[in-house]
């Protein structure tokens, strides 16, 4: 039966194999002088062993079909917003990036009114900038025209 444990075990085993494969590029060293690949190889082997154990006892886990994904649209939108923020933060500046991100989440994803969206987006973006950059002296990126 396809259970959550078995799906996770396969993913962990694949990761362990990738680490073992990538560790070939680094010197393994010897027992009395372990190299940079020594610990990753040791850990990848341990992860592989644990993944096999999880898979072996995996029948006790919940069935994969029982997992609910009702919120996936929201989750995808939030991840997309985070990706946009990562790309735009140093190009558009903190305030503009956050105002756009908040505007998208509240106005488009949550379908709130235009005025509420604008007020909330601008207030939170400007307020958090003032708190951290101006008051607490944590430097945040500025965009075009110093915004």
């Amino acid at each position: 039966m396809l259970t959550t444990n078995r799906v996770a075990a396969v993913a962990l085993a694949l990761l362990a194999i990738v680490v073992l494969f990538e560790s070939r590029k680094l010197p393994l060293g010897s027992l009395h002088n372990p190299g940079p690949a020594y610990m990753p190889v040791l850990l990848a082997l341990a992860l592989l062993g644990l993944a096999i154990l999880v898979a072996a006892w995996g029948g006790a886990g919940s069935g994969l079909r029982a997992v609910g994904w009702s919120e996936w649209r929201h989750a995808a939108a939030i991840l997309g917003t985070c990706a946009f923020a990562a790309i735009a933060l140093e190009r558009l500046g903190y305030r503009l990036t956050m105002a756009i991100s908040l505007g998208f989440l509240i106005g488009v994803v949550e379908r709130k009114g235009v005025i509420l969206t604008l007020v909330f987006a601008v207030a939170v973006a400007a307020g958090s900038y003032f708190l951290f950059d101006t008051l607490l002296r944590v430097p945040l990126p500025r965009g075009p025209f110093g915004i």
Partner: protein
Amino acid sequence: MAETVHNLLLGFSVALSPPVLLYAFVGCVVGTIVGVLPGVGPLAGISLLLPATFGLDATKAIVMLAGIYYGAMYGGSTTSILMRIPGEAASVMTCIDGYAMARKGRAGPALAIAAVGSYVAGTVSVVALMFLAPPLASFALRFGPPEYFALLVLGLLVLAYMSSGSMVKALAMATLGLLLGMIGIDQMTGYFRFAYGVVELGDGIGVVPVAVGLFGLSEILATAGQETPPAVIKPTLRELLPSRQEWKDSNWPIWRGTVLGFLIGIIPGSAHIISSFVSYAVERRLSRRPEEFGQGAVAGVAGPESANNSATSGAFVPMLALGVPSGPIPAVMLAAMMVHGVSPGPLLIKQQPELFWGFIASMYVGNVVLLILNLPLVGVFVNLLRVPYPLLYPGILVFCILGVYAVNSSVVDVWIMLVMGLVGYLLRKLEFEPAPIVLGVILAPMIEMALRQSLAMSDGHYAIFLTRPIATTLLAVGVFLVLLSFRPLVARGLDWRARMAMAEKGEEL
């Protein structure tokens, strides 16, 4: 004794200076808000607010972050009692009887007992921390690389054993964390490992983006789209006073919870969660009227709330004395201290007594601040929950991105947070506990260095771990725990870890 009192006076001279007092207060207020808001636990809260302390000196920064930690512990009880929503995981047990009391019209006394119990536990456990940390630090000076390696391995094994559910799954997560901690420049040879040309990964993966991703972002991903939270039971100030019988019924549970919580707090693992679970089980076992548990027994609020606050101080013992975090939250605190140039460990107490004793004294002060803050302002904090979630989560997301970016001024950290958020979301769906990953990330460099130094010392013989008494004892305890985890396979019924997993999921015990 005289030396301790002298040092404590030094600590109070630091903690009672107006600027430090102000930051302790700010930390407590912010921590309470963090505790009240569902989804923003102390781990994500401390990680997010770390950049806010960059402009401060080490003492003020650590005092403020510690304030956030125990403020969150206090604040978590409020939503548990008034809404049956645990503000943070340690308050799960408080939901059961706290909410039952609230439905009977005793919300005020439940909040008051929780606050007084937390205050007593917080204060008593700080006294214990004060007396226990210095001798433990002196003892730790005897530790060499093999002992540290054994201690760190034991820490991971205990964490895995203490986590609810499968020890194998928890160990797999800890190993995943250790592997993530391998990314970056190898400290001994200078080789770049698994960085794929990304210069920013040279220093390794930071604990802050990992913690915020796994706990903050993944919570938002899992809960976004939900409707506005249910109605809140809002007591007035006049209704806060417990009856004489309620005081009497909660007296011993508070003291037992305090002692249990502190002892469990020292042990690695999600101490504050486990301590509240154990305390609840103990109180029900000792009660003359166990049938009242689940129906609004005041001991079911007093014990767990005292225990989880006491565990907060207990968790600081290995962190301050040994430099070894006992769980994900102390791990983030440790990272925060390192950002401020403070290296917790055996030498901290000798080299920076103002910081250590100032920190201890600020915990006394913080407990008083929280007692004053929590009861009269409970209505104000609860109002935060009236903000509709569709507006609340975008605001929290902004702070996640801001907090992660500001640590190193690096968008690579924002990408790491994004990936970790997705990983945390999937792990949640697959019923895996992400906390060991955070501990693995922070312990990875220490554990690798200790292993390689040990092998270099012994000319490649692993037997070094079996020839040194302290290392051998620590590893033997670890092996014993692994064997103990097989017990449910041969014994009938649910063991305490399975029962805790059920309680966390809100299932009937």
